[in-house]
């Protein structure tokens, strides 16, 4: 899957390689990629059999935020749109899935589909103004949209429960059985996560994804050769919002609680930094980035006597200097720096 980031140059043959600074990858047989991927999937699937419940619970959480990071990477790494409001669609999906689970049914896949749909709709409603700006202005506009939506969640007591959050979300149900065990919930989240990851990966490999990378690297040229670039960016924004909404529905199933903090600035910033830590554009790197961040903050943090944030800060600084291409850069084992043109 490392091919994804390196395929930039294949865009319709019209693009040169301005972004990654890496040449075309040497042709590799399929098994070079397939075998490690299969191994990772097998290990992930087998984990609940060997890990204690808390480790499995933590891993479930990592997967949820990992999927959120993948969806954001579709914007940041593939399309070149750094969003500081992506948690809004994650939270919208989480609230919708939680609300449906409480009031209608928690039967899989209803909350998942509703969460994804609401995430996508929220992105569709707000994305059109967002994608017309760029760079830091895009960053700030998405921040503003995210903060306004977080405030809506805070104020709309009747539906969201206000600052106390939407509590008492029932466990997801499959065929009439509640998935209360940490292991079963993990398998559900893993299954959805793998499907969604595959969908995003296929999207990024498609001609549509190639066009998005073209926009990232040189938007005026893409426009000049006839691409409706704003429409493409809007499409990416809505797709990312939909996947984030799906991740949100997994959060509702895992955390059994949704609060305004889930769609606020902190979550948005943390997940954006997770994408950077993991290596934007590789899709799988951000999963690792999210794992690092969530592991430090939520799993190790409570045992660090209140110094979880200090450790997180040190991790950020170290990653910037030691892993200039993010975690994804580790696989290429080349000392070259990202974005050096």
């Amino acid at each position, binding site marked *: 899957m490392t091919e994804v980031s390196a395929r930039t140059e294949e865009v319709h043959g019209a693009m040169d390689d301005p972004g990654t600074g890496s040449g075309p990858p040497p042709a590799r047989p399929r098994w070079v990629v397939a075998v490690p991927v299969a191994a990772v999937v097998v290990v992930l699937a087998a984990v609940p059999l060997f890990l204690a419940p808390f480790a499995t619970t933590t891993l479930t959480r990592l997967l949820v935020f990992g999927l959120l990071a993948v969806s954001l990477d579709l914007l*940041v790494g593939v399309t*070149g749109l*750094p969003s500081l409001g992506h948690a809004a669609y994650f939270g919208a999906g989480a609230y919708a899935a939680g609300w449906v689970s409480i009031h209608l049914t928690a039967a899989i896949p209803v909350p998942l589909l509703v969460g994804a749909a609401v995430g996508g709709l929220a992105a569709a409603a707000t994305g059109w*103004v967002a994608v*017309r*700006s*760029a*760079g*830091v*202005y*895009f*960053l*700030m*506009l998405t*921040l*503003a*949209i995210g*903060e*306004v939506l977080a*405030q809506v969640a*805070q*104020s709309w007591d009747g539906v969201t429960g206000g600052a106390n959050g939407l509590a008492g979300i029932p466990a997801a149900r499959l065929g009439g059985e509640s998935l209360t065990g940490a292991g079963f919930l993990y398998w559900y989240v893993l299954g959805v996560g793998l499907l969604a990851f595959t969908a995003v990966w296929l999207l990024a490999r498609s001609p549509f994804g190639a066009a998005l990378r073209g926009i990232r690297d040189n938007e005026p040229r893409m426009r000049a050769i006839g691409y409706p670039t704003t429409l493409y960016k809007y499409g990416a924004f809505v797709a990312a919002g939909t996947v984030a909404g799906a991740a949100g529905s997994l959060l509702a199933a895992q955390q059994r609680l949704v609060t305004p903090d889930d769609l606020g*600035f902190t979550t948005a*910033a943390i997940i*954006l*930094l997770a*994408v*950077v*830590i993991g290596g*934007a554009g590789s899709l799988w790197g951000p999963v690792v980035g999210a794992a690092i961040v969530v592991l430090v903050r939520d799993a190790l943090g409570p045992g660090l006597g209140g*110094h979880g*944030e*200090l450790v*997180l*800060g*040190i*991790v*950020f*600084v170290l*990653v*910037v*200097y030691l892993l*200039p291409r993010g975690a994804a850069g580790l696989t290429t084992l080349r000392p070259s*720096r*990202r*974005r*050096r*043109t």
Partner: protein
Amino acid sequence: MTGWLAANLLSVLNGLAIGALLFVLAVGLSLVFGMMDVLNLAHGALFLVGAYVAAALVGGGASWGAFLGALGLAAVIGLLAGGGLSAMTEPLRRRSHLDQALLTLGVALIVAEVLQIVFGDDPLAVPAPPGLDGSVSLLGAAYPTYRLALIGVGAVLAVAVHVLVERTTLGALIRATVADREMVAAVGVDNRRVKIAVFAAGSMLATVAGVLGGPIYGASVGLDSTVLILALVVVVIGGLGSVRGALVGALVIGQIESLGRALLPDLASFVLFGALALVLVLRPQGLFGSRAGAAA
């Protein structure tokens, strides 16, 4: 009706005071971003350093000596911290803004945590210096003298920064750097020294703003991120990299935070980001923005 008018005039005046403070806070962020192309998310932490310096020196008993001492100490710390941040971001020169954001946010988390360890968890207050700690009667209501003085300080600093950037040789160099960094380097000016100078000055303004804001905001855990977001909003509304933009942005946000909340109390929680969204939808480059910063 006259009472309503007087109360709102007072809110306008108060908006000026808050705007003055926001200008001192945000102009450094704007210059560092616009000129040096570094997104410094540690700016809020620098403000908090200034606030805690003020709490430590002035908290025990307000005197002009202590207050000016706090200003001086905070300025020195700001200069050094700016130099340090400049050096830390130097290896990231050709990397994306997001890498800089990661680094500076990491630094911000570390600084905030160290401050919490050193000064404790409790919120601290900073008394205003003697003579400014009372209030005066304005439009039939008491108004704190310190906030009036703050308007004056903000005006003086705005003029000073404006003159420095628009009228001096150094300012010309700075503006030239904003316009075309490669060209400035090509004519033989050492970019890095300009960067260190701007970074140090910008950071100094942030720590000084922390001291100046002390009597209003105090010093507490979490203040850094609130202030950072406010500064980012100011800078983006005004447009990046211009002193005039930072000033207009600060005054606009000062009014939104003051008059806006007075006129729309039920929407108080929405006005700040609602206004930001509105400005960016209507003018995607900010009110006075150039193209700088449009490419992340």
